[in-house]
């Protein structure tokens, strides 16, 4: 755990986000069996600190892109759960009136510019946003989250090359859970160290195995300074452990491709509990924490209630937004 470098209020805010993400994910787990959320779910449990830490460091100027596993980042960026759950229930009040779903979350007004179900496909799009930020001198910064499987894709290399060549304001956030679906890095990599390979480019490269949200935020800020001072984009390899199966709401340690021992090791450093412990250490009482947790619990429960009661989109909605038409 890093030395406390942020205000108590920031620590509380970060915990509130971690708790929101974890609790919202657990709510999906609890309700998924009701078969009302009729879509695949790629759960973020275990990755909360990366989402909250990176988004906190970037602040409002961050323009982020994600993968199909993006519940955590969406919630860290927006902190809203009404439109979110409505989208997961396929309702008209959802983010994209139910037409996008869990794998295609977005909230441009919060700087969450989209998520894709095709591995690595948002990486160049984020590079394009970074190009626009630079051209328009907005001081915004793009950040694209992806798993280590994305590095197997050619477009990752094309994009990192372009970002370095054109000196673009972008952070490549590799959420490395060691697995691409169920296949480990050792079974996929013909190189020894991705960090060393990427260091041969002109961008900065960072790596960490921490689960501490504040430490992740500090690393991100360092990467952002690298751009502000030297126009260097950055690649951040942030390790974490995927608690649940690749897709779905269950554990899958009985499937034999990974061991529960590994999970138990990581769970000792669980990102949500770690930050909760920090708050206690800062003198915030158990009661005060529970009170805030209660507010979040209520927010989520009410959002789910509203989502369940909301209407499905009208049939004509199928045909809207295929093309933009001036109104």
């Amino acid at each position, binding site marked *: 755990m890093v030395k406390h470098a942020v205000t108590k209020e920031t620590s509380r805010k970060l915990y509130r986000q971690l708790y929101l993400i974890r609790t919202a994910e657990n709510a999906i787990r609890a309700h998924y069996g009701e078969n009302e959320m009729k879509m695949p779910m790629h759960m973020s449990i275990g990755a909360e600190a990366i989402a909250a830490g990176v988004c906190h460091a970037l602040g409002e100027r961050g323009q982020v892109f994600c993968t199909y596993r993006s519940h955590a980042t969406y919630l860290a960026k927006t902190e809203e759960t009404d439109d979110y759950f409505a989208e997961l229930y396929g309702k008209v009040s959802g983010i994209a009136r139910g037409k996008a779903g869990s794998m295609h979350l977005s909230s441009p007004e919060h700087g969450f510019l989209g998520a894709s179900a095709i591995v690595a496909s948002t990486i160049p*799009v984020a590079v394009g946003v970074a190009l626009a930020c630079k051209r328009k001198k907005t001081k915004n910064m793009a950040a694209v989250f992806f798993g280590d499987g994305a590095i197997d894709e050619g*477009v990752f290399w094309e994009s990192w090359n372009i970002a370095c060549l054109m000196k673009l304001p972008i952070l490549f956030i590799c959420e490395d859970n060691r697995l691409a679906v169920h296949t480990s890095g050792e079974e996929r990599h013909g190189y020894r160290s991705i960090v060393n390979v990427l260091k041969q480019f002109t961008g900065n490269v960072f790596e960490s195995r921490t689960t501490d949200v504040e430490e992740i935020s500090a690393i991100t800020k360092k990467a952002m300074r690298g751009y502000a001072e030297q126009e260097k984009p950055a690649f951040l390899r942030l390790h974490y452990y995927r608690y649940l199966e690749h897709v779905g709401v269950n554990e899958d340690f009985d499937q034999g491709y990974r061991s529960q021992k590994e999970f138990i090791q990581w769970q000792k450093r669980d990102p949500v509990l770690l930050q909760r412990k920090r708050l206690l250490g800062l003198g915030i009482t158990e009661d005060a924490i529970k009170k805030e947790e209660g507010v979040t619990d209520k927010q989520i429960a009410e959002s789910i209630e509203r989502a369940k009661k909301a209407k499905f989109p009208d049939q004509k909605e199928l045909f809207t937004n295929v093309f933009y038409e001036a109104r």
Partner: protein
Amino acid sequence: MMKKNRIISYSTAIGEALQQEMERDSSVFLYGLDVADHKRTSGSTFGILEQFGSERMFSTPLSEEALMGVGLGAAIAGLRPVNIHIRSDFLLLAMNQLGNMVSSYHYGSGGKLKVPLVIRSIIGRGWGQGFQHSKSMQSIFAHIPGLKVVMPVTPYDIKGILIAAIRDENPVIVLEHRQLYWVEGEVPAEPYEVPLGKGKIFRKGKDITIVATSWMNVEAFKAAEILEAAHGIQVEIIDPRTIYPLDEKIILQSVEKTGHCIVADYDWLFCGFSAEVAALVQEKCFKKLQSPVVRIGFPHTPCPTTRQLENVFYPDSLSIVRSVEKKLELKPCVLPKEAPNSWEHKFRGPF
């Protein structure tokens, strides 16, 4: 009033459209493989780099997929990119971005994000270009919901359509036939738009309709002249100009008038745009048809390189003449001596 009597080439008209739009709107920029080299994409962008600088016109690494994604990102962030490809075959490298991202981004964002992205690509027969430098693929692009696809034929149309495409808030793929680059025609000096989704009557007639795309308009035009001289047949040529969204009305009105329809598409026949038009005509004006719809296009083979086989692969004005004669049960006429692929003499159409 726009003066129309100025004659310029198709490639000059492209450059003029780009230059005028870049002057009007500082968010427009051009990029792609070798875009800023001395050849300037077959002479279609001369003077632009000098006027606007390398920030707004630049060559890129050979990374088609990423650069299509870059265009999408820049577009949703408020710029108006023009991504240029010297050959449509290279767009297959960017197909993931086109098919999975560019086409559905507006839809997937619930309509919040707009994608004003233009993709210019050169298509068509050149000079022994073979099977990896000659594709058109309009049917492949138009098959994907969310993409607009245009194939302008005349210098007037390319300027107006390119301007309309740049001003459009949606992704537009502009397919420019290489041989059309030399075609000259009347083009107003002022900027103007030719609306996307509107076809035109390329040649007026009453006896038979030929729906032609891209270069096939040139071949159909020559065929029409031969048929008129030999048989007194009045061929009506419809150029849809936009593949999607398709101007169905202009096609149906013509076929209702003539009762006969040939579709001459500059692409493979199987699962192609020609099949789409044939289905449309038979569904919507079956009772007016006096003969089955006939399709002319490429056989289901890769494009060969050697001239002898290339001439078999590509339909031309003579194949159109014979199709019309067969359809209207006319005796085959004596064909003019001029080689069918007279594009090599730099076709000058009466545009």
